């Protein structure tokens, strides 16, 4: 048999290798080096972290390819980059650069308010955000090879990350208690593909790896998400908007591995400087919430 590339196994498989790890937002090669030094399992290359995108306003787009390439040259760990929801040409550009994963992300301003990218068309794998099980299975139906619960990016407030993780994981638990003949009604109610509903019920988990994102700022936040049942965490503004990024990044990596060991979480949380100031989610006008982008 001839070697095959771009298969579902390979796309989902890379996400399997990231499990138990921390994926960090970085805006330049120096931050990428700090992230790698701290033990990040991958970096997300972008021009502005979500907290700055939120503060600056305006349209947020794919980052400068030169900046992404520089980060790819700097670190040996996988490099991810974001395209706008539905912007398949930004995705084509990122694929041609050779990034390891594309995040079709609500943090950028959507290019299409009805359709997401058809991710089956690409050799490079995609990660997408979700707030509930239906949204997760729609994205997987479109070809996403990894999910992340959205949370509310750029806030440093973990409450939405918890809400979305509980929503996805709770729905899977309910799904497992259903009888076979109840699955179609469940699929209809969720707006999710029937076959993926069945597969999720059989496995007792999403068909792809599921990380948490959006508001994680402390080692205890990361461990909280892990104990809720996600496979790993994305930390965006939480690291490089804090007082001592290297120390905090290391502490979050260690707390993610030892998420069930409170004594270790306590130990790594000592003297790591100030966390990002953050914004309480309820102080943000509903029109400015990022998580409601995409469907």
């Amino acid at each position: 048999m001839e070697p095959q590339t771009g298969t579902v196994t390979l796309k989902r498989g890379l996400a399997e290798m990231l499990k138990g790890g921390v994926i960090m937002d970085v805006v330049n090669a120096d931050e990428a080096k700090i992230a790698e030094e701290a033990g990040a399992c991958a970096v997300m290359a972008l021009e502005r972290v979500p907290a700055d995108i939120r503060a600056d306003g305006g349209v947020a787009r794919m980052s400068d390819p030169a900046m992404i390439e520089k980060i790819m040259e700097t670190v040996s760990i996988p490099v991810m980059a974001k395209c706008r929801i539905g912007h398949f040409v930004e995705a084509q550009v990122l694929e041609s650069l050779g990034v390891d994963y594309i995040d079709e992300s609500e943090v950028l301003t959507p290019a299409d308010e009805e359709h997401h990218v058809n991710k089956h068309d690409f050799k490079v794998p995609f990660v997408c955000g979700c707030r509930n099980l239906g949204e997760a299975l729609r994205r997987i139906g479109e070809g996403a090879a990894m999910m992340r619960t959205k949370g509310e990016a750029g806030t440093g407030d973990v409450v939405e990350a918890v809400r979305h993780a509980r929503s996805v994981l709770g729905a899977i638990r309910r799904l497992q208690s259903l009888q076979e003949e109840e699955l179609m009604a469940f699929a209809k109610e969720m707006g999710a593909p029937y076959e993926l509903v069945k597969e999720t019920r059989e496995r007792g988990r999403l068909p792809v790896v599921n990380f948490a994102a959006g508001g994680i700022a402390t080692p205890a936040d990361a461990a909280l998400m892990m104990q809720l049942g996600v496979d790993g965490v994305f930390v965006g503004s939480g690291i490089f908007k804090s007082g001592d990024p290297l120390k905090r990044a290391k502490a979050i990596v260690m707390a993610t591995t030892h998420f069930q060991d409170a004594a270790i979480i306590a130990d790594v949380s000592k003297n790591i400087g100030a966390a990002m100031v953050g914004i309480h989610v309820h102080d943000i006008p509903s029109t400015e919430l990022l998580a409601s982008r995409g469907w």
Partner: protein
Amino acid sequence: MKIGVLALQGDFAEHQSMLEGLGVQVSQVRLPGQLEAIDGLIIPGGESTTIGKLAVDFNLMEPLISFGEAKPIWGTCAGAILLSKDARRPQPLLGLMDISVERNAFGRQVESFEADLDVPALSESRKGEQRPFHAVFIRAPLIQEVRGEAKTLSTLPDGRIVAAQEGHLLATSFHPELTGDDRFHRYFLQLVEISKAETDPMAGVVE
């Protein structure tokens, strides 16, 4: 027999479920004390820099080296890098196997591939007939050189080395834990059986 999976980061759960499918007792290893009760260890796929740094931070390097000197360890992908003496860049390594590796030797994720391999050591029939082993390579390392007691177990058709063994130590640059084919896991369990019989003269003796 009890097998540990190093659970610092990566796809340790996939190894665990393969082993449990073979009826083996499995425990996750995150701290040095957890190495004591096990007869063999698997270091999974993941990011080798992340796993190495966490092993240093939690004082696992020396205990892992002592463990590997006495008992079987199998490293897949990132685990194979950690077992090597040389990864051509500075990062924490156990240096247990006399092999050198090149990380991301095939390129980035879009170059990741699946291919069938001949692995003579997995041959099950007396005639030496065998099915190919379907292997999944994800941002995989290549075993560039095998020296001393280390032996090549499998190569790609062009001769590049992707699996090696040195006594009770095993390194594969691909991921048997992702394919559902448990032959490599069974092969490793045989190494553990042999090692147990050698180190414990009472093993197998009916009391």
